[in-house]
């Protein structure tokens, strides 16, 4: 079994399913799932739309060990309904975060393996409520001293309410394949027109929402290669650099966002921002290897501000 899992560790995070990510991220045999698929806590709404259900409603929550350290974790399955937040899906995550908040014996680290397009449209109102409850639960857990780390590198990216939830976490890890934002490319194009944003222009989508851009701007705190091993290492490298969750941190972050707008508000595309940041070859960022990119990102003040 150990050898069987070893092969997953080098596996692409992007290609892996949520359960494969968990199996390879955690120490072998250490995972205990809460409300597993055999409990059949399925969405009560999808049947009304004659749509297929999943036994875990697209999210797996539980506890386990990473390099002998206890963690709680939640993993969204981006391929089921786009990893969207429905009523049950959201409630499972809220329960996990409240457990971390309330039980002093619970692990003090929560890993959120986000892979989501946002609220599940078929469960619109309860989905929105779920996102609000999750945001509150993340913030309350952080106030109770829990570290919540978002890991973004899946097929669905991390959009809509998922983008807001990620922004509320203690730290964010992202890969080049990872994308995060609130309104996704198709939503922007639908509302504002193709001249504002062409969602079929893949390089543009990645330059705007992709992992490299997010990391350089400081919207993500660590950059991982697209492997489960690299995500684990990147997340754990952040654990000793968790900002205090207090008013001072929030005020610093607001000041930093105001500065960012002032500095880069006139830029029309990501390479203009990178140029303004003093990066030598801004047009070549997309082609850089993960290793070289990480060196550049780590040297950037903008990317490594204490207040994210």
């Amino acid at each position, binding site marked *: 079994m150990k050898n069987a899992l070893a092969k997953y560790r080098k596996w692409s995070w992007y290609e892996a399913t*949520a359960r494969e990510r968990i199996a390879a991220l955690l120490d072998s045999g250490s995972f205990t799932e809460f409300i597993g698929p055999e409990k059949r806590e399925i969405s009560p709404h999808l049947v009304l739309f004659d749509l297929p259900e999943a036994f875990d409603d697209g999210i797996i929550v539980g506890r386990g060990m990473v390099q002998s350290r206890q963690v709680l974790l939640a993993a969204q399955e981006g391929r089921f309904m786009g990893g969207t937040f429905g009523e049950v899906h959201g409630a499972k995550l809220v329960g996990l975060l409240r457990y971390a908040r309330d039980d002093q014996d619970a692990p003090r680290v929560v890993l959120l393996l986000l892979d989501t397009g946002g609220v599940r449209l078929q469960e619109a109102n309860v989905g929105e409520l779920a996102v609000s409850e999750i945001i509150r639960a993340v913030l309350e857990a952080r106030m109770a001293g829990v570290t919540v780390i978002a890991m973004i590198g899946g097929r669905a990216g991390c959009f809509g309410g998922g983008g807001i939830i990620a922004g509320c976490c203690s730290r964010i890890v992202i890969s080049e394949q990872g994308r995060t934002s609130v309104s996704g490319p198709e939503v922007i194009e639908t509302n504002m027109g193709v001249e504002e944003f062409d969602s079929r222009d893949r390089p543009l989508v990645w330059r705007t929402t992709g992992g490299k851009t997010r990391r350089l701007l400081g919207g993500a705190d660590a950059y991982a290669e697209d492997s489960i091993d690299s995500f684990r290492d990147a997340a754990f490298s952040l654990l000793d650099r968790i900002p205090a969750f207090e008013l001072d941190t929030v005020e610093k972050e607001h000041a930093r966002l105001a500065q960012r707008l002032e500095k880069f508000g006139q830029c029309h595309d990501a390479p203009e921002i990178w140029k303004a940041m003093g990066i030598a070859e801004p047009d070549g960022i997309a082609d850089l290897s993960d290793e070289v990119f990480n060196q550049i990102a780590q040297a950037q003040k903008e990317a490594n501000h204490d207040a994210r």
Partner: protein
Amino acid sequence: MEKLQIHQKAARRASGGKSHGITGVVASGNLEVLLERVLDGTECEVNIKTSVEGFDAVWRAVINDFIERHSPGGLRISINDGGARPDTVSLRLAQGVRLMEADR
């Protein structure tokens, strides 16, 4: 959505000691298979919910073939299908019984 139930006796009980396992994802052209060791003797029950209607005969052929090859006695198998092809269904079912072969 179409629901199907297939009830059949297998030649032997499924090996391993795992009480339940799941494999696959409900997505277009894919399916999830939940296996639970809850039935007596060599009974096997397969419950299918599929988004593609009218393939009753194909499902029965695929499941009968699976039960003959893998002898999943004692297992209740529940499937949520997003329109997977028969070969994908066979593969997931085989992955499922392999999963159940673990000790716990």
